[in-house]
């Protein structure tokens, strides 16, 4: 479970996000939705503890990401927009390294490696060098890295961006499978993706939360496109006044 409370972040004088609040429950796939530059990545970077917020708190499975950073981080699997790969390593040595720094015990490392290779369909390329892999494979290696310590919380920043249609379908299926007993937060600006895999939607526009609702509530009657446009234009209109 992830609780985000009143996050505000300033870069110098620029306010990237303001008073962002939402909750992702256990077993939920929460879609963080918004136009480019709305503050999705900033929010995720604060939730993962990559950078501190100017104001507000985040708790992951009950641990504050700043005050109890180590405990919180152990419970997060994070796939940034650009998968954080060491290009001259092989897939399995990369995953082992990630496992070690994420705190997987040495005796369990081989099992963990096998599990994520299998889950992300990487067994065939385990000994290949990362830089030789296609974008779709790299994305899966990044995802495998986020999963190696079997975290209860997964945070995925635009996990399907730049992939071809077949790869997109594979990654989406994978995310849905992974969700089951985890909390998943994923950001995207692809609307059909949300209606296909998410159970809850948070729309962020110009740094503030425009709406936080379950997909069912949100899409009542209208299509997601209409709802999305309504919320971001209403907010823009309000901001302009």
């Amino acid at each position, binding site marked *: 479970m992830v609780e985000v409370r009143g996050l505000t972040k300033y870069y110098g004088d620029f306010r990237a996000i303001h008073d962002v609040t939402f909750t992702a429950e256990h077993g939920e796939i929460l879609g963080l939705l918004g136009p480019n530059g709305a503050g999705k990545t900033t929010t995720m970077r604060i939730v993962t503890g990559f*950078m501190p917020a100017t104001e507000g708190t985040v708790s992951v499975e009950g641990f504050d990401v700043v005050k109890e950073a180590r*405990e919180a*981080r152990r419970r997060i699997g994070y796939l*940034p927009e650009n998968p954080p790969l*060491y290009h001259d*390593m092989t897939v399995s040595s990369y995953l082992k390294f990630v496992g070690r*720094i994420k705190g997987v015990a040495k005796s369990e490392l081989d099992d963990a490696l096998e599990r994520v290779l299998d889950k992300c369909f990487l067994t065939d390329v385990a000994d290949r060098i990362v830089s030789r892999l296609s974008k779709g494979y790299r994305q899966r290696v990044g995802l495998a890295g986020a999963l190696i310590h079997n975290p209860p919380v997964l945070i995925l920043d635009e996990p399907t961006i730049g992939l071809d249609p077949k790869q997109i379908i594979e990654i989406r299926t994978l995310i849905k499978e992974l969700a089951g007993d985890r909390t998943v937060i994923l950001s995207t600006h692809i609307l059909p993706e949300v209606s296909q895999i998410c159970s809850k939607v948070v729309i962020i526009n110009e740094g503030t939360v425009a709406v936080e609702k379950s997909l069912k509530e949100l899409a009542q009657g209208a299509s997601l496109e209409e709802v999305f446009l309504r919320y971001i234009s209403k907010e823009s209109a309000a901001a302009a006044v």
Partner: protein
Amino acid sequence: MRNILAIAGKELRSLFVSPIAYVVLTGFLLLGGWFFFNMLFRFSYLLTLYTGIQNAGAVQALNLNEYVIAPLLNDFTIVLVIMIPLITMRAFAEEKRSGTYELLLTSPLTVAEIVLGKLLGLLAFVAIMLGLTGIYPLILIFYGNPELGPIAAGYLGLFLMASVFVSIGLFASALTDNQIIAAVICFVVLLLLYILSWPAETAGGGIAGLLKYLSVVDHFNEMVKGVIDTRDLVYFLTLLILSLFLTHRAVEASRQAQ
């Protein structure tokens, strides 16, 4: 400690899976070999010369430590000033560029563990690099009889100096995501440390003493003579800890400004 070793191991391996390690080691040994050949040639020339003119006193004064090993290690320090910025420039800058910085900083690691891990990994590489040059003193020990104490003290000095250089390089790399900028900053600081004592001759008084104390060369020269003084050890350790502290601050600060 486990985390520090994981980072250190990765750092060291990343040098060897790319051609970097091999190029640097080959270059270092090539230059080292040339310096060694030079010193040995000069030594042998002087020996023949002094024996020829039957100057027993001068022949007595010739010894391998002072005429071959000390100048050889001194030449290595210059090569280190040039090489170490190139070895350390990637440390943080490349992680920032490739996005792996995000992986490190969102892992259950402290910044201190990351910094110490990187230091340890790079020092292991420097130790390999310096260790391989051990062949030259070994040749001398095999064919002559140099004193072992000054050799050991000299290598200790060289390693301490290299550690300080590496920690300064880490700091430079933590400041930027551009490897060239990191290398230039590091190189300028190392060269300054090296030449700081140059005006000391003419400056005189307290300033001369200060410049000499701050410059890395005098401390190293003491050690090459075989003198291990706590004053010199304190100097190297102070610089090492100061740069590591600054690196830690720089990494923390970079979090704020992403």
